[in-house]
């Protein structure tokens, strides 16, 4: 499936900003199952400095700095992306028990090992292990266990955009069983890591045109977040606990990381500015 994604981020400031440095994670990744064949990030006013590079997770990062006084910052990212469903073909992989995934993992894939550890927004705790445990009886196939965990989060947790903020600790989400996609992804990741297994945070978009006869999916016209687990030999497999899905062709990946903090779409440090207001709009349209 091919998409054009338009992601607009606009900051308005009550007072002039004299200088700002920003980092944007807005260009979709090219990775197995996804090709980004065109992407443009336009910044207004025109930045004095702009550079692009890849970060630790091979995400495309754009750094830009504005050096003249401004009271508005507008970042528009337009990207054309193709997503192809990649079903797991190996029967062995589907059957592999979750304990087996752990063995030799750190040695063979040091970078995946990183994703089994605590991260700034996700602290592994006993409560997470306890929550995960029922889905992980000994010997159960890994993907089956994760699919159930994904489903349980979907059922147990209430979608409530008014309950959490960016900084709401995961413990609170777990306790009250409320939150949004970011929170659910964090909880799922915490559960997986609590078992010593790698899980990563995925930020991106969700196509929201409801197929005829199907209910409208949440996440429409906004960026979305889910998680992925690592299956040696197969790579990363995505799960969306907000919608109880295994993404196929409607999820477009922008960036991946340990947690939300690694992939914030736009962040920055600025001088001046007073109060600011932020507006974001996202459009995902099918190209064919």
């Amino acid at each position, binding site marked *: 499936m091919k998409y054009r994604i338009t992601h607009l981020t606009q900051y308005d400031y009550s007072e002039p900003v004299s200088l700002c440095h920003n980092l944007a994670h807005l260009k979709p990744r090219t990775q197995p199952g996804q090709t980004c064949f065109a992407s443009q990030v336009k910044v207004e006013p025109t930045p004095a400095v702009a550079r692009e590079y890849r970060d630790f997770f091979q995400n495309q990062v754009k750094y830009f700095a504005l050096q003249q006084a401004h009271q508005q910052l507008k970042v528009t990212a337009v990207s054309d992306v193709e997503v192809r469903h990649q079903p797991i073909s190996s029967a062995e992989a589907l059957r592999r028990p979750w304990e087996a995934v752990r063995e030799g993992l750190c040695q063979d894939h*040091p970078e995946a090992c990183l994703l089994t*550890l605590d991260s700034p927004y996700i602290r592994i705790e006993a409560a997470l292990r306890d929550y995960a445990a029922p889905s992980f009886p000994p010997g159960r196939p890994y993907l089956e266990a994760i699919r159930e965990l994904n489903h349980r989060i979907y059922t147990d947790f209430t979608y409530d955009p008014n309950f959490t903020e960016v900084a709401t600790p995961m413990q609170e989400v777990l306790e009250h069983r409320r939150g949004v996609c970011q929170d659910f992804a964090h909880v799922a990741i915490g559960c997986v890591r609590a078992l010593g297994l790698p899980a990563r945070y995925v930020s991106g978009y969700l196509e929201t045109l409801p197929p005829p006869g199907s209910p409208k999916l949440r996440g429409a016209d*906004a960026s*979305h977040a889910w998680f992925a687990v690592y299956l040696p030999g197969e790579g990363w497999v995505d799960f969306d606990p907000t919608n109880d899905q295994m993404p196929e062709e409607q999820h477009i990946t922008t960036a991946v990381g340990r947690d939300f*903090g690694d992939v914030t779409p736009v962040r920055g440090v*600025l001088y001046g500015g007073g109060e600011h207001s932020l507006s974001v709009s996202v459009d995902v349209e099918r190209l064919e």
Partner: protein
Amino acid sequence: MADTLLSAAAPTGLCGSYRPPQEGFDEMCLPNGRIRPHWQYLSEALDRLGPAALHGRVRESRRLIRDNGMTYTLQGDLQGQGDPQGLSRPWELDLIPLLIQSEEWALIERGLMQRAELLNALLLDLYGARRVLRAGLLPPELILAQNSLILACDGIKVARDRPLVLYAADLARLPDGALCVVADRAQAPSGAGYALENRIVLSRVLPSLFRDSHVHRLAGFFRTLRASLRALAPRRALDSLRIVLLTPGPRNEAYFEHAYLANYLGYTLAQGDDLTVRDGALWLRTLNGLERVDVVLRRVDDDWCDPLELRGDSLLGVPGLLQAVRAGNLTLANALGSRILEHPALAAFLPDICRELLGEELQLPSLRTWWCGRPADRSFVLANLSRLHIRRLHPDIRPSCLRGAQLSTQALRELAEAIRANPSAYVAQEEIPGATVPVLGRDALESRRAILRAFLVAEETGYAVMPGGLTRLVSSDSSLGLSNQLGGLSKDTWVLASEPEREETLIPKASVYSPAIRLTSEVSSRVADNLYWIGRYSERAEGLVRLLRIIVLRANDRLNGSGASEQEDCLRLLLQALTQQTLTFPGFIGEGAEARLANPMPELLSLITELPRVGGLPQTLQALVMAAWSVRDRLSADTWRVVDAIDERLRALTEHPVEQLEDTLDALDPLITALVAFGGLTRENMSHSEGWQFLELGRRLERAVNTTTLLAGTLVPHSGEMAEGMLAEAVLGVTDSLIAYRRGYQSGTRVGALLDLVFQDEFNPRSLAFQLDRLEELVRALPRERGCLGRTRADKLALEAASAIRLADIDRLADLPENSQRREALDALLERIAAILPQLSDEITALYFRHEDRPHSLLARRTSR
């Protein structure tokens, strides 16, 4: 034969009676109690000097240390305190150096060089290919855990593949005398400046001993450091190359060293907000605009260097710093991310890593270290808990280091539980060893355990080792060796050469010195700001002390004497002027003033002794000391000595507050002397460059404000001839113009003559006219924007005030209309000037000290649903 000779010479005198513990290795004495050959000369020299002379030298060294302002602030001292200096300690130096023979040092050097090469290679690998992880030489979970590898630094190209420019190792001797590395310091290793200061002090206190001992010199190390930093600069335009030393600021425990090294190396000392990233490069904000910076010698830890990509809440760094590095426009020494080399578990893996990366055996062993994530290590640690040091890797858990020997059985059991539950979070090390060394005690030599911090700097090929280092002494039950703190007793370290070395220093000799190196560093707007306030506070303090002194004298007269009504009137006006000048309302003016006027003592003592009292004397002095400390590197040693004296007076005032008014004179008089000396030194011993102009501006402006307030409070109201005579005398006293007055005007004090002298006389350096004239000149000489030809607003304000005084008609101002109680014309003029002065100060502040707002992070806002 040799035996008899030795025993005949042995054991009398200071060194002869030194008794190190039976166990372990002593640096000076052999196990049989004899003095090691390379200590022979020193011990004889010490014995010859004798205890009395030695203690004289000790006093001399303390004086030098104090005079040089050599301090160290113990971490944790400053928490929540507003006093950056009050808790910093004078540096402690023991007079007996640690001696190391050339031959042994050569071995140590080789081991250290190899280790530095190894750590540099490891750093490159960890932020590059991570071969050591894939080869199983380091557990990834150790390196990739939070607070270890910094992901933002991954893959950044490092100048000349030298991320580790400076490296320090803490060395200690094992019981058999072999050396091992107790800790590696790789982020921003400190102590080299203290080592240098130790050397300077010791070579001055024991000059002939130092000269005859053929000690390797230290200056070469710093010359290499300078050459290396230049070579690492990304641009090759060497004539405009700029290097700054980035300090966390005056509150940092080793701020003294930062200021000292910046001065010694000829670099600008900068704090985060002196710097800015623009056009993908780093710039220093100076009064003349932005100046490009090529290399940063940093003393700010990794995490705090860049709020954009590292800790977002840091105010110590520069937003965008890492981007300037990434763009290849800036070199940091050391590279960001080097804290990984300080990981306490690393030592357990270094021998294998050394074989892999260098193809060699590790020469200098580390302190034996076990990581409980390895089953074999874990069982060993659990079986030997009570004799190990245990460290928890999780940064949030305190205390992070436990000493098995100090734990109860119960605590040991709990610790074992915790290790079993989460083994990979625990590292264990042997007890820190350390040879004993002789330390000069009160009557005899005592033995203490020593740890040596050795310093290395990268050079063209490989590393250069400082011949010597910082020897720190630990009490036997302390675990200080594990911390990065430098406080406590220290020693100079002498590496003995077989031949005497040529004396050398970094102070340039005109003929051989490359003119490209800038020894005069730019004045940043923060420095200018601090200098301006030093000027204002020093003058404010001086004016206040003078006024207080006159008041105390008058109040004493009243206590002892007549209590005539004119005396009362005079005292009342002076007290009210005091409240006005210090802005300590209600004081002698507002609510409750009558009671305070009747018994002024408590209020006066409060202003003289209470530190928290805003506007009071201690608070003013403290503000002065704090501002001076912030520009430590700009003040000469002599000036600093005076600041220290002021600080001591300040402590005396607040720590032993006087209770009787008459005693305050004893406290106030020496303060005047110190403040006058401070003024004189800053006038005579500082280059009259832009920085100095701001100090002078501050001083003149403050004195103008004080004089205006004083005149308005004393000469505008009229309270009879007698009282006025006394007041006039007081005004002359406060303005230090009494002698000039007596010389110029024979008969008693007349208001007209007084005004002439302290108001309009352009030649009296205490007069208002003099201040305003100087202000006008200084303001005109300030740097201004290019193309600005006309008068600025500051020019106009200064001119207006100066002209108003010049044109004033003294007779009219002094005139007191029939039946009037006030000199209205004088009042109006003083008010006009009093209104202009703060405007002028605001204008200068806005033009020159305008810092951009503090940077702040855009809060990550949830944008997804």
